[in-house]
């Protein structure tokens, strides 16, 4: 069964961080089971992990579930489709989620997005798959409109 990725998990680093968090969580569960007398306070989860377990209806407290989840995450990491997107400035989480939502809905649910900063992109973005680079920047737009600009400059 394939894991469904929540919108809060957008990048490869997110998956790696959640994998690490699940591993820590598993260790904590084991430790709590060993210390039966200890107070079993709820272990705080990150937003990404929380969304992941909710979306996939996983109970991390069940035996071997964290280990299975770690394996599934490893498997997912091998299956993900990684896109790279550059902006002029750091995009907000809201923007990230909107973008990842569009990609997963319109293109493929396994898409992850690496975000980069490229100050020369004044407006727009540059998307890079491992096959093609799509330049949605203003510069590219102006280059495509060069003939019209020249015509406008010459007053034609």
């Amino acid at each position: 069964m394939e894991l469904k990725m929540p919108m809060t998990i957008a990048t490869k680093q997110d998956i790696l961080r959640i994998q690490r968090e699940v591993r820590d969580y598993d260790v904590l569960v084991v430790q709590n089971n060993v210390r039966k007398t200890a107070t079993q306070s709820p272990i705080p989860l990150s937003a990404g992990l929380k969304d992941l377990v909710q979306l996939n209806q996983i109970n991390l407290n069940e035996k071997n579930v964290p280990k299975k989840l770690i394996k599934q995450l490893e498997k997912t990491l091998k299956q993900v489709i990684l896109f790279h997107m550059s902006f002029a400035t750091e995009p907000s989480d809201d923007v990230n989620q909107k973008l990842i939502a569009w990609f997963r809905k319109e293109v493929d649910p396994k898409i992850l997005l690496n975000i980069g900063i490229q100050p020369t992109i004044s407006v727009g973005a540059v998307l890079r798959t491992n096959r093609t680079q799509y330049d949605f920047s203003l510069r590219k737009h102006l280059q495509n409109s060069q003939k019209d600009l020249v015509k406008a400059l010459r007053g034609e």
Partner: protein
Amino acid sequence: MSSYQVAFGIGISAAILSILLYLLWPRPKKNKATSASPDIDLAAIAEKKSMEVFNDSFREELRNRGRLHFEKVISENALFLQQDLRLTTSELNTFMKDEIQKVLKDEFSKYEASITSARDIALESIKKTQEVIDQQRTQLEQQMNDQAAEEKQRLIDRFEKNMADILNHYILDAIGGEIDLTDQLEYIFQSLEENKKAILEDVKNGA
């Protein structure tokens, strides 16, 4: 009268005077006592008589006359000579003047011709130089115009070629980080939608 004629006159006069002096000059007396011939006596008598006619006073008179005549001839000839010399001098002056004038005229003509020729050559040279300068100026002007047009076209081409970058640079400078990415989302999603098919193709072919 020329100087040759004067000299000839003087020569003739001198010859006549010499003959007269020879004839009138007294000769030494010969002893004729031993002569027995009557012809000889007659000759002696004639000689004696002639000596009586041509006595010293007569001879002196003749000598004076000859001297006067000689002086007169000499004076006349000197006058002729003087006149002739004046005339010759005058003619010589005229001749020299004419000759000098002629020579000077010729020399001036040659000089003028030479000056004219030199002036023509100089004018021709100046004209040719001027033509060359004009030609070079025209070429240079044309070359400069061509280069200016070429440079202008090159600048325009470069501007047009890099127009997108230039505008982008100015926009970047003008807006900097003022535009929030949220405001750009519509444009980004529109671009994504336009390229959706290609992106799907990438994923399908193993993106």
